[in-house]
Structures are given as C-alpha cells and as structure tokens.
C-alpha cells in the first residue's frame, strides 16, 4: 500500500534525509537558548572562581568595606547585597499589590471596551528604555523627594492607607455591631463606624504629620529607586497575572455566581485561588525584573556602599550588585586579571544563583498548587 506512494527508493531516502535535516534545524533553534545559558554560566563561573581563590569567602559576604580601588583593596560586599535586597523589597511593595489589583480590575471589573484601551497603555510602560526611567528618577523625582520628601510620603500614605482604612472601618463596624441585639443593630453599626473612622482618621493625621516633618537630605535614595523600579515591574506583573486570571475561564465564574456568590466572593474565593500559580509566576517575574535592573539604579540609587541605619531606612542611598558591576567594569582590567575584575563576576554569579533559586521555587510552588487542585 505504502510502496505505491513512493516513486523510487532514492526519492524516499532523500525525503528522509530532508526530514532529518529539518528536525535537526528545529532542535538547534530550540536548544540555542539552552546553549547560550550554558555558555554564560560557564564563563561567569570561570571568571568568578579566581576571586574566591584570591580573597576567600569571608570578607566578600561578611564585611561592609567596599574599597576596590585602594591599595590594599577591600572587597566587602555585604552592604551591596543588602542594598540589592532593600531595593527589591521596596519595588515589590510598590509593584505587587498595585499590579495584582490592577490585573484583577482589568480582568473582572472594567468593562471590555475600556480594558482594550487600558491594557496596552500599561504594557507601554515596558517599552520605555530604562535609561529614560533613570533620567526621570534623577532629574524629576530626586529633587522632588529632596524638597518635599515628607509631603510626598504623606500623600502616598493617604493614597494607600485611606482606602484600606475605609474598608477596615466598614468591616470592623459590621463585625462589632453583629453582636448587638437586632433592634439596636443599625444604630450600633453607625455609632461604631463613626468611632472607628474617627480613630483611623486621627491615626492617619498623626502619621502624616510625622511624615511631613521628615527631612530628606538626598533624593537619590532607596525610596526613589523603589518607586521607579516598581513602576518598571508593573507591566510584567499586570499582564502576566491578567493572563492567568483570564485563563480561569467563564465556567468557574458562572458556577460561582450560580451558587449565589457575590462578585467579591467570586473574585476572592474562586478566581484568585484558581489563578494563584499564574499570579505567583507574575510576581516572581516582576521581582526578577527589579533585581536585574541596572541603568536606573546606577543613575538614581546614590551608590553608597553602606547599610542604611536602621536597615529599613529607605531615605538613605544604597548600592546594588548590578550597579556595582556596571560602574566598576571600566577600571577592572581584565588584562591583568586582578581581583577587582573577578569580584564583579563573583557578584554576577550571586545574581545568577539568586535567579536560579527563584525559578526553582516558582516551579515548585506552581507544581504543588497544580497537584492540590488535582
């Protein structure tokens, strides 16, 4: 049967060879990214190992004295690790709640026509080069934070805490009045609302007053970079988690509504848990974006190799791993192969190891949540 379709043995062999070649080409294209990764890993390890052989581990991870250009040089990178961690933490605080809520809003709350407009606009943030963000942070945001740092923080506190406070007051008032006898419930609810709202507003006023008095000596600090990094990570988080929320599907939502759940219940108890792994992936991608960003932090973080005191003081300048690699590359002569050159690769290796761990964790969490759902 098959033989009838084949003209000759030669043609068959030719066709098989063609298929093999095509197959090889596709495998080559698919494996190119893996090959590139292996190459990068190999070269970074090759140039990082001499540093640890020359200087050992203790100073690099435990000391905060970063004087690579002095004689003798000191390579204590602890403050730089802390700087990277601090900036990443700050960016996550800015980007994760905002990004996930924006995704929820896009996928389930905004009308379809508006979503078609808003999503591309958010994604456009990703198209802006990081040097432009850096310029903005240096020229616009830094003087603003310097001159009105306290007021900016106070305004930010109002923006974040006022809605949260409002929700808390409403829920708290309901919870408090639920214990009362039925006929007193309505008035009890109003009274407890007023009391709680008064307490919340008072606390907010005291807090913002304290923030307002704050003096910010330098505008190129961890706060500045955290805000702008958060904005840079937003499009990743929004668009990946929006995709995850969308892929949950109509059936689950409609099933939930059919059982009598409200929209809030559907969102919080059905849609978000179902999309959890996707949202987590979005968050990790966003965090990786913040860790790896270089130009912005080099321009706007101040680059002081010093652990802020106290450590969570976002108003002090910090130095990050990526900025150090970028900034010190020029003088670190590979010709002579000095420790000053290899230390940058040791930092690159740490960044790579961090990215690897993050990926493994996200993979693990996703797999587990998939298993839990059955």
């Amino acid at each position, binding site marked *: 049967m098959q033989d009838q379709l084949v003209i000759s043995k030669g043609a068959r062999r030719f066709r098989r060879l063609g298929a093999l070649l095509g197959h090889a080409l596709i495998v080559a294209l698919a494996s190119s990214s893996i090959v590139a990764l292996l190459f990068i890993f190999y070269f970074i390890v090759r140039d990082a190992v001499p540093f640890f052989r020359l200087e050992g581990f203790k100073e690099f991870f435990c000391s905060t004295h970063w004087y690579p250009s002095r004689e003798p040089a000191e390579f204590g990178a602890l403050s730089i690790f802390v700087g990277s961690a601090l900036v990443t933490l700050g960016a996550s605080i800015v980007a994760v709640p905002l990004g996930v809520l924006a995704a929820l809003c896009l996928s389930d709350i905004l009308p379809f026509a508006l979503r078609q407009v808003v999503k591309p606009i958010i994604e456009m943030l990703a198209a802006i080069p990081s040097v432009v963000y850096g310029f903005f942070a240096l020229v616009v945001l830094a003087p603003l934070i310097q001159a009105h740092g306290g007021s900016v923080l106070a305004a930010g506190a109002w923006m974040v805490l006022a809605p949260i406070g409002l929700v808390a007051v409403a829920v708290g008032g309901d919870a408090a009045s639920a214990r009362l006898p039925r006929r007193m419930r309505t008035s009890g609810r109003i009274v407890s609302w007023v009391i709680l709202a008064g307490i919340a507003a008072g606390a907010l006023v005291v807090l913002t007053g304290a923030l307002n008095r704050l003096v910010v000596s*330098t*505008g190129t600090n961890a706060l500045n970079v955290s805000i702008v990094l958060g904005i840079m990570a937003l499009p990743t988080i929004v668009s990946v988690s929006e995709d995850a929320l969308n892929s949950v599907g109509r059936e689950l939502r409609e099933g939930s509504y059919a059982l009598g759940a409200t929209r809030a219940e559907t969102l919080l108890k059905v849609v978000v848990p179902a999309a959890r792994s996707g949202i987590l992936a979005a968050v990790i991608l966003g965090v990786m974006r913040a860790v790896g960003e270089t130009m912005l932090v080099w321009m706007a973080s101040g680059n002081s190799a010093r652990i802020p005191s106290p450590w969570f003081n976002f108003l002090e300048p910090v130095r990050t791993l990526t900025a150090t690699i970028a900034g010190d590359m020029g003088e670190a002569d590979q*010709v002579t192969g000095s420790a000053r050159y290899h230390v940058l690769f040791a930092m690159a290796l740490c960044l790579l190891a961090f990215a690897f761990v993050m990926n493994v964790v996200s993979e693990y969490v996703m797999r587990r949540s998939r298993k839990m759902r059955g």
Partner: protein
Amino acid sequence: MKRFGSTLAGIVLMTLVCTALTPAVGFGQANKIIVDGSTTVGPIAKAFAEYYMSKNPGVNITVSESGSGNGAKSLINGTCDIADMSRFMKDEEFKAAVEKGIFPVATVVAVDGIAVIVHPSCPIQNLTVDNIRDVYTGKITNWKELGGPNVAIVLISRDTNSGTYESFENLVLNKQKISDRAEYVGSNGAIRERVQSTPAAIGYVGLGFVDKTVKALKVNGIMPDNSTVTSGTYPIARPLFMFTNGYPKMGSRLYTFLNLYLTPKGQEIIQAIGFVPVTKY
C-alpha cells in the same frame, strides 16, 4: 539514538553559525581615527574632531567617552588610536601595553583644575584642602562644622572608575579612605545636576563643567580659574593626556589631529570648553 544524533547535528550547526557571525573588525585605517577614554578629556576630543572633520572632509573621527581606565584598555587592546586620559597610565597598564607590543606615548593637551562645587545658596566661600579631605573622609558630616547651616552634608563623588575620582583621590584624599556615605555618579554632568538640585550637597568637577547653576569654592583661598590653574597656585589641578601607540608619524592624519592643541584654533577650542590651554597665543 536517532534523537541524540540530531541533537548533536544541531549543536554542530549552532557552533558553525556562531563562528560565521563573529565579526571581523579592523582598526586604524588611514582615514579613520578612533578616540576613546576619559569623560573629562572627551569634550576636547569631540570639539577637535568636529573642527578637524570640517577642515578635512573624508576623514572619520569617532570619539567615545567611557572613562580613563576604559581608554587605556582600548589602547592596550588596539581598539582605539588615541586614549583620552585624565590621569597618567598606571604601572600595570603600561606593563600590559608593552607586553602586547603597544608603546603608550603621552601628550599633555590641556590642564584641568578640579573645582569643588556647592549649591549657590551655600554661604561658604572658602575651604582648605584639609577641610575638603575631612568632609570626604567623613570626619566632618555637618555644614555647621564648617561655619554653615545645621544640615548634614551630602557627599557626591565620581565613580571609582573615573579619572576624575582618581585625581581627586591623589590630590585631595591623600590616600585616605573616602567615607561610605559618599554617593557615586557616572559623569561630571551628573555631579553638577545633583549639586544644583541639592542644597546640602558638595561635589567636584572639572573646571570646564562649572557654570552659573553651581558655586565653585575657593581652595586654600585661591579661586579656580585659568591663571591660577596654569600657574600651579590652585592646589587641585592636573594635566590632561592623550595617549597614542608610539608617537604618530609626522604629517599623518593622527599627527595633525593630535597636535591641534598647539594651534591658535586649538587653544580657542580648549578655552571655549572651559579647560586651560598649555599654549598662550
């Protein structure tokens, strides 16, 4: 087995493609001059290049500003014809160059004073070199200690990668450790930007980068300007170099370009950018 074979074929193919794509780069053509190095000397080289190319159409001069260290590296690797440097070459750089068959020759094209700058609103007019060292090593942290208002000093420094930093370290810091509070920025322009927008800041830039938006301080009672810098009375001054591989062949394009600084037009250019020429016409 079959799959393994095709994977292997794929990897071989990849390698071939990579090899084929490796660019073949050639440097040093007669009508092309590549200049790389210090961001301080860069503006001189750029202005020279603009003038030279307008006089000699057909000559292509590219000027990059990647820092003195990178300039030296490029010269050693043979990827540039002139390395702009705001410091002299280090021993190791010389050694690496000679080992590669490159013989760096220095030409001093101009002199630069490093001006210590503050915000125009700062009441302080004069500091000694010792004061500046104490500020940058962290012994003095408040303007009050220097007779100013009670505000913490914001230290702005060039990155340790720059020639300006190294000159400052040698001329002012006297090999002491710079304070870990110092903020580092990547260029002279960025220092000026930070100082003009920060009332409590102190920074240092090449004299050519001082403008009306910032205030240059007197050092040891001497105002940084052309005459105090060339006479050597201003304490924080340094020569600016252009390094070539050997001295260029007389009459060659490289030779005439390099020696522009000796011409009246060259002097005019250097003065216009704000550096101090070595010639007096």
